[in-house]
Every structure is written in structure tokens, then in C-alpha cells.
């Protein structure tokens, strides 16, 4: 565990902010702090003043009642409300920006487990309790947990996101200042919760390239491809089951009439709980790989599937929307790993993947003699 990571001040009062988003958050906080200090001084001061000026001088005093007015009450209700609304909008703006990673952000996978952080770069590097990133680039973290809820907290970047088992959550940052920064687990997770800490190392681009060059394992997509072969996935997929080519982020019709988008959460669910969502026109025959694959292996398979391309996505919205591929209670626990990702290895998208899919499914249906079910 590496301890002293911030500049050696005799007494640290303000944490370093290493990202522009973090600095904006600091600005908002300082405004709130200033207004709070003002209000506290105003109240304290007024009370102090009244306490002195109106102190009891005789036990026989009988002050006259002061009738309040709607005007005064309204004023001192509406003004704080307006100030609060200002805080709300600014805070919401920062929060939304935090929740919407840029399309071309570099993605790194984080798996929390009792009591360490496992960091996996798509290009193959693995780290434990450390995260090396380049300065000046957008970095997106895709986070999950293998056991209990943890939280990936980088104070210097002013970001934090819970690592929840069973779903992917995401946060992103754009670090500008090279340096080493604290990494903490911020959600109590058992015995060694306070030991689940590490370092985020921001390197200048050149240094980062150098770091990448040393100790590179195989990329996640390659590892995923090996798993795909090992578990015989291509015995079905591409034959009697839907092909995985250009599957990532495609809209898929389900047997019960719903349409889902094949994002990370959907892919994960399809691997671990295939019966939850069955593609229209296909039988529910895929076995579950829960207990067979680790969280890391699931992520590698997802990386592999992503490397097989995405369909054309003209006119899609931004990366915030209701989660669809969840194995959990819908609506409330929707994961937020639903962002649009550019994919470096995308094949040229087909012009109309939906027609292809529909044709194929009715083909399958006709072959099997069943009814063609319309999608809603």
C-alpha cells in the first residue's frame, strides 16, 4: 500500500483536483460553501445581536407580540428555494456529464472483490490496486463486483461509483495532471474495507506508451475469442442460434414481444442467464455459464463479441437510457452501462440489420414449422 501521494503540505486543507470536471465540482462546492458561510454568519450574527440588544433587564418585562406577515415568510422561503434551484441545476449538469462518457473514451474494466481492485486493460495489461492512465485522454471505467457492493473512489478526480455484483456501472474522467492519486473503496465491504485502497497513476502520453509496451498480456478480445472456442460457442452461434457478428448494440426482438438493445449488461445476462431473454424465433436451449465463467472471463467474451462489429446506429440517442439487459428488477436497478461506444474494430455496418434479422427469424420459424410472431 502506498501512502503519501499528495504534495507534502504540512496540513492539507484542500484536495488536489486533477481533472477539469473535478475543478468544476470544486467551484460549485465553493459557491455553496460561501453562501453557507454567509447564511451561518447571518443567523449567528442576528441571534448574537438580538441576544445582547434584547436581553432581559427586568423580570417584569412583557414584550409585545410581533405579527408576522405572509410577505416576509414568502420572501424568506422563495429566496432560499431559488438559490437551491440554482445549486440543483449546476449539480445536475455536472452529474449528467459524469454519467455520459464520450463516445471515444478509452475503456478500462474494473472488478472489485473482497478486498482488492482488479483492473483489466482491453489491450491486455492487468493491474491490482493500481490504475495507469494517460493524461489528456478520456478514460471510461466499466465497473462490477464479484461479491459484495464496493465503490471505486478517486478523490482527486472527484468521482465515485458503486461496484455492484450482477451489473455494470460506469464512470469516466479526463485527467490533466500527471501524478499519483489515492484510490479508495468507499462502500463498506467487510473486514478489510479500509485495506482496499490503491493508486491511480496518471502518466504523460509518452510515459504511458512506454508503460503499455512492457508486460502486455493478450488483449481482452483475443482472450475472449479463445474462451469462445474453448466452450464451443460456435457450435450453435451462427448455425441454429443467432450469429454474434455485428450483434453489439443491435436492437433485438424477444420472444415475448419486447425489443432490447444488446449492450454489455444484455450480453452478460445472456451468458449467465440465457433463459431470461430469448430472441424471437429461436428455441431456449442455451446453457447457463454461471459458475463456469468468472467475471473477468465474462468481460473478455464481451470484448470479443464487441470486436465482431456493430450495426449502423444512425440517429440513436446519447448514452443514457433505461437499462434493458438486466437480470435484476427492472426500472429501479437499471444499470448505466448503456452508453454508445465507438468500436475500433467495427466492420462496415449493414444497411438494414433489422430486415436481415427478421428474415432470418422467419426463415427459422418456417423451417421449424412454427408461427411467425410479430414484434410490437
Amino acid at each position: 500500500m502506498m501512502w503519501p501521494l499528495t504534495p507534502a503540505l504540512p496540513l492539507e486543507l484542500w484536495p488536489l483536483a486533477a481533472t477539469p470536471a473535478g475543478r468544476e465540482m470544486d467551484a460549485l462546492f465553493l459557491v455553496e460553501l460561501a453562501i453557507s458561510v454567509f447564511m451561518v454568519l447571518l443567523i449567528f450574527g442576528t441571534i448574537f445581536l438580538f441576544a445582547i440588544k434584547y436581553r432581559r433587564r427586568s423580570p417584569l418585562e412583557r414584550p409585545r407580540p410581533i405579527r408576522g406577515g405572509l410577505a416576509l415568510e414568502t420572501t424568506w422561503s422563495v429566496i432560499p428555494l431559488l438559490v437551491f434551484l440554482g445549486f440543483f441545476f449546476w449539480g445536475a449538469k455536472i452529474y449528467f456529464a459524469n454519467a455520459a462518457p464520450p463516445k471515444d473514451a478509452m475503456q478500462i474494466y474494473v472488478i472489485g472483490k473482497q478486498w482488492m481492485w482488479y483492473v483489466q486493460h482491453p489491450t491486455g495489461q492487468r493491474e491490482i490496486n493500481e490504475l495507469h492512465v494517460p493524461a489528456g485522454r478520456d478514460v471510461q471505467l466499466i465497473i462490477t463486483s464479484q461479491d459484495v457492493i464496493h465503490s471505486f473512489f478517486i478523490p482527486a478526480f472527484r468521482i465515485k461509483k458503486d461496484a455492484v455484483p450482477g451489473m455494470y456501472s460506469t464512470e469516466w474522467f479526463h485527467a490533466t495532471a500527471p501524478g499519483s492519486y489515492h484510490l479508495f473503496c468507499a462502500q463498506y465491504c467487510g473486514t478489510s474495507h479500509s485495506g482496499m485502497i490503491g493508486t491511480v497513476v496518471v502518466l504523460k502520453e509518452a510515459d504511458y506508451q512506454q508503460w503499455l509496451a512492457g508486460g502486455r498480456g493478450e488483449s481482452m478480445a483475443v482472450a475472449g475469442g479463445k474462451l469462445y472456442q474453448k466452450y464451443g460457442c460456435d457450435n450453435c452461434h451462427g448455425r441454429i442460434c443467432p450469429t454474434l457478428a455485428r450483434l453489439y448494440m443491435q436492437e433485438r426482438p424477444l420472444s415475448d414481444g419486447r425489443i432490447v438493445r444488446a449492450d454489455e449488461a444484455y450480453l452478460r445476462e445472456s451468458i449467465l442467464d440465457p433463459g431470461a431473454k430469448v430472441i424471437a424465433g429461436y428455441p431456449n436451449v442455451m446453457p447457463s455459464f454461471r459458475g463456469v465463467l468468472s467475471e473477468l472471463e465474462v468481460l473478455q467474451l464481451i470484448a470479443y463479441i464487441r470486436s465482431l462489429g456493430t450495426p449502423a446506429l444512425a440517429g440513436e440517442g446519447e448514452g443514457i437510457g433505461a437499462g434493458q439487459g438486466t437480470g435484476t428488477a427492472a426500472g429501479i436497478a437499471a444499470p448505466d452501462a448503456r452508453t454508445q461506444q465507438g468500436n475500433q474494430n467495427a466492420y462496415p455496418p449493414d444497411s438494414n440489420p433489422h430486415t436481415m434479422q427478421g428474415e432470418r427469424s422467419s426463415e427459422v420459424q418456417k423451417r421449424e414449422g412454427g408461427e411467425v410472431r410479430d414484434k410490437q
Partner: protein
Amino acid sequence: MGASIEPLVERTTNYLNAEHSVKSWLLTTDHKRIALLYLVSITLMFALGGVFAMLIRIELITPQGDLLSSDSYNRAFSMHGIIMIFFFLVPSIPATLGNFLVPMMVGARDLAFPRINLLSWYLYITAAAVMLYVMVTGGVDTGWTFYAPFSSLFSNGRVTLTVVAVFIAGFSSILTGLNFIVTIHTMRAPGMTWGRLPLFLWAHYATAVIMVLATPVLAIAMLMLGLEHVFHIGIFDPALGGDPILFQHLFWFYSHPAVYIMILPGMGVVSELIACFSRKRIFGYSFVAFASLAIAILSFLVWGHHMFVSGQSVYAGLVFSILSFLVAVPSAIKVFNWTATMYKGSISFDTPMLYALGFIGLFTMGGLTGVMLATLGVDVHVHDTYFVIAHFHYIMVGGAVMAYMGGLHFWWPKISGHMYPEIWGRISATIIFLGFNLTFFPQFIAGYLGMPRRYHAYPPEFQVYNVLSSAGASILAVGYLMPLIYFFWSIRYGLRAPDNPWAATGLEWKTASPPPTENFEYPPVVLEEAYHYSDEEAPIA
């Protein structure tokens, strides 16, 4: 200030000496005796929770985990939270001052359901006994928030027994709230219209509504967590198709309104104290009354602000954030009205007033940091850090406990028939105020710097703040010990209290100190507003 004069006529029988047997105390249905039973029990639980706090603060003096093992520390902070919240703060003012005063303030002989009141205390005692058993057989290490799947699948503490204890304590709370609502609705004395209710009663009414409606959801959350812990069905386990975040929603649906259960009664006390020690009616009475109701209603709509980084949808975050700002407005209204009450008043600085003024200051600070936490962008940084711990201790200790102390001192003459020593009262109030700030203000800084909650060991750069905080905690402990000692002392040696030592309005001051068992010699009739300090007939010190 209440000068002590020997009475011309001795009224010998009051609720304290009416009967002396143990059975008459343990099977009492007199709301005043039940209030004292609660007073003793929650003081013991407060002391126990305080012991755990001392363990935490002593451990945190050094960055390394050296005093306690990790598991012991985790149990220490869990026990501290569970005991302080469920066994001290939630019952505190309602079960002691509320039980004692609600019937008296409406002019009734007792609460609507005296035997249910006694049942409520026995439920509390049972739950406390289970919790004590948990403590001596290993404790629980889940934190008072019991997040799944840690508490359902991974903890090896006494989770099942703890949720049983909390479940039972919840019913104690529900019955108290039910009793208050029915009493205030149906047992007001002739002339006591809603518009003449003391604000203490408005606050307790709002609190009771929350107790009655929110606590059952806690009961369900605990029941389901307990079943999950024992049977591993999967309701909160993603590997079995469950959702850990569902637990958070169920838990916080109660636990956010619960924090208003903890603060609203304190606000009610402060209204009484400010009015009495400024000798003026509360400025904006109806606004303060409705603010209590508004807080109670809005409190049910903001629970998701504990979950901004949990992975819930950003749109849910937006809704919860704006509602959380909204719920801050009625609290601000109250602070402004209390301050305005002092304008052109006649202010004296007896001990209860010192606590009330301390409340206003510290609650304002705590509340404004709550506004910071409601701000989505900021919360992402300070969530689950010491900033949050400092925020809620400002409200609960700087607010609720100070109000409780102020109320205890104010009504002590009525409860015991004796005056506490005023000098020591003022000294301990000052020590508590200073000790409190030294304990918790540095935690704001440590939190913003990034020190997470529930950390047994921490990076050395946070040490300065932790040392300051622990130093403050020892001062605070001294401050709390002093009233314990002098309240006991006053029972034996304190000056005899007259009926109305503070020259306060309110029906409870129109009867003897201590009151007879039936509260009033004759059923009271109310002819004036709640804080009629300016009337010709107002009491004079």
C-alpha cells in the same frame, strides 16, 4: 428565573410517590412513569452507544489499525450506529418528553391508549435485550445500513438476531406514534383548537405520522433480510436473480423519514424554549406548524439521495435531488422564524435557552451541508466519506441531542419537582457545544479530502483531523457526564421547584411540579393562544 419558595400548602401526593412498589412502576399505565422508564433505558443505551463511539475515536487517533482488529472495529461502528439510531435517537424525545408532555399539553389525564404505551416500552426493552445479547455474543459487522449482499451472504456477525431486535424496536416506535396521533386528535381539552396547539405537539404529530407510516417498511426490509440471511433464496443476491439495490430502496424508504423522526421532536422542543426564554409568541406560528407537516410529507419522497452513486438511474437521481432541496425549505423557514421570535423579546440565558441557541446554530450548519449533499455533482465526491458523517452528526448530535438536553433541563422541574443547579447547567452546555464542534468540524475537512467512512486504518495525511476529532470527543464525553451527575444530585439536594419556575405558558405549567397522577386537579379549559406571553394574565417570573 424560577426562584424557589417554600409552598404554603404541601401537596403531598404526586405521580412519583403515589405508589412505591416495583410492580407499580413495572406495570404502570401512567404516561409519566412510562416516560421515566424510557428515560432510564435510553440513557443506558446512550451510554453504551457512547462507549462504542469512544472505542472508534481512540482507534482513529493513529492511522494504523492498532487498538482493535479490523473485525472488532467493524463491529464497533456497527453497534454504535444501530444502538444510537434505533435505541437512542428514534425513541429519545418522543418516548421521554413526548410521553410525559403530550397528554399534559392537550389537557388530558393520560394518552389515548395507556396500556399500549406500556407495551411499547416492553417491546423496546425486549429489543434492547436482544441487542445486548448480540453484543456479548460477537456483535454484528454490517454497519447500521445492513447493505445486501454483504449482510445477507457474507457477514459472519449476528445478523439474524440484530434484524429481529430492530424489527421489535420498530413496533415499539409504531405504537408510540399511534398513541400520539389519536391523543392529539381526540383528547384535546375544551378550547384547545388545532390553532392553539403548542408547537411541541405539532412537531410530535408530524413525527408520529412518519413513525406510523414509515416504520412498517423497515419491518419488511428487516424481515426479508433475515429470511435471506437464513435461507439464501436470492431476493437480494444477483447470482440467484435478485437485486441488491432493492434492499437499499426498501431500507432507505424508512431510514430517510427516520432521520426526520429524530429531528422533528427536537424542533418542537426548540420552539417551546425560544418562546419561553424570549417571552414572546413564536413568530409565524402557523408557518412553523405547517413546516412540520411539510417536512413529514416530503421526507417520504427523498430516500434515493442516499443512492446517487449506487447505479440507480440518473433520472431517479434528478428527482430525488430536487425533492431533497425542497425538503430543506421548511427547515429554513423554522430557523428564520425562531430567530425572528427573539426580535424585541426579553431574552434570558438559562441553560435550556443555551441549548436551544446551540441547536439553531448547529442545525443550520448541518442543514446547509445537507444542501451540499443534495447537490448531485457534489455528492458524487463526498458520498460515503467523513463529510457525510460530519453532516449527520451536526444534525443529530448538534441538533437532536442538544434539543433533548435543553428539553430535559426545561422540564426537569416539572418531571422531578426539583431544580437542577443552574451554574453547572450552563457550564456543561458550553462544554458540550465546544466539544461537539471540535469533534465534528474537522470531519468535514477530512471527508472532502477523501477520507472514506468506516475506515479502520487511513492514510497518514488525515491524522491531524482525526486527532482533533478524538480530542473533541473526550471533551464532549465530559460534557455529557456532568448533567448525568447533577440531575441525580438534584433529586436529593436540588431546590424545590414551583409549579412554573420559568413563567412559561402551556397547560403543563398550570399544575404542580411534579404533577399528580391524574395530571390536573380540574380538567383545564383553554381560552388563549399557545404562547400568550403578552396577555395581561401571562405568568410572571
